[in-house]
């Protein structure tokens, strides 16, 4: 499993002009933990809205890259937005969903992804080419994504120390892969010291 915060750090390590929208909860804290940036937009509410904010921004700024980083719970509340994005297909928008299988903000209750719901399949059915950094077989489709995707998979398979993600991965490659496929699911391990009980 991947360490979520390290994985987001890897994703954004060489962000250059990347605009980032972070969904309610842990992904907002993760983004802030990397240091504030004028190109960040953090949500601490409006659950289910992150992907649509990314879409509006991507349509307004077609020459800039936009990445939405959000969790499985936030994405589940905005499932219809995957269909809306699937119709627009902006080339400069990627939704990277960090799937830890839990609702972190309310006390780590199980999310639907633990109950057999596969958001990658959902997004694929809705017309986007999607992929997941979860197993070697699934990531073979990242033909030109290079080392990053494979590294992430190796990390999952062999349970390597999470810090190796940021040390070894070609971060630009991960962003490029995310933008190419449009929707990327990164399976993450819950990090216990990041538990937030906000009710």
């Amino acid at each position, binding site marked *: 499993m991947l360490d979520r915060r390290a994985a987001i750090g890897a994703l954004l390590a060489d962000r250059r002009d990347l605009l980032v929208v972070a969904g309610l909860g842990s992904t907002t804290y993760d983004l802030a933990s990397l240091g504030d940036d004028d190109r960040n937009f953090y949500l601490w*509410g*409006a659950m*289910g*809205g992150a992907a*649509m904010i990314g879409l*509006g921004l991507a*349509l307004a700024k077609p020459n800039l890259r936009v990445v939405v980083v959000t969790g499985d719970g936030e994405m589940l509340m905005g499932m219809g937005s995957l269909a*809306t994005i699937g*119709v627009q297909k902006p080339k400069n928008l990627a939704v990277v969903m960090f799937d830890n299988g839990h609702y972190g903000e309310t006390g780590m209750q199980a999310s639907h992804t633990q109950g057999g719901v596969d958001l990658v399949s959902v997004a694929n059915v809705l017309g986007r080419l999607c992929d997941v950094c979860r197993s070697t077989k699934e990531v073979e489709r990242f033909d030109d994504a290079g080392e990053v995707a494979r590294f992430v998979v190796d990390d999952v398979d062999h349970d390597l120390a999470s810090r190796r993600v940021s040390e070894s991965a070609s971060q630009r490659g991960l962003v490029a892969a995310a933008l190419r496929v449009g929707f990327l699911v990164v399976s993450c391990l819950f990090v216990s010291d990041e538990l937030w009980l906000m009710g």
Partner: protein
Amino acid sequence: MSEPGSPAPTWPDEIFAVLRRSEIRQVGYVPDAGHARLIERCRAEPAMKAVVLTTEEEGIGLAAGAWLGGQRAALLMQSSGVGNCINMLSLAKSCRFPLLLLVTMRGEWAEFNPWQVPMGSITEASLRLADVTTHRVDEAASAAETVAAAADLAFNGELAVAVLIGQRLIGRKRWVE
């Protein structure tokens, strides 16, 4: 929708002209009979991106993203869709994003579907509770100027503003295959 046999109303085209003059670049909508003509015009306009939504609350996020990227958005919805937006309106309020909603009313004039009445009867009160300023349009002659005033108030006054278009103006629903 006009009365059967009457000429097509021009107020939707006048509202479209106002949206163009107001430099609206993104239009989020859920398909709606009352807004059908306006949606058609927006979809055909190269300077606008018409974004079909699965639910109206998506539009609140879309408009926020557009504003972050330097563009103005308008959202077209039915009164029932206002109910779908309530929590997402906190995004506009918390961040002081401007918002322009054009709402076709249901459940208030010659309504044939009782399911439209509960939300239609609380649409304006719900918007006001959510700190959205409301303007009403009941006559075709005032539609364009009301939308123009709402756009100025939204984007220059930095407010969330909704224009409620009365069901009497929209007219009785004309069923089509």
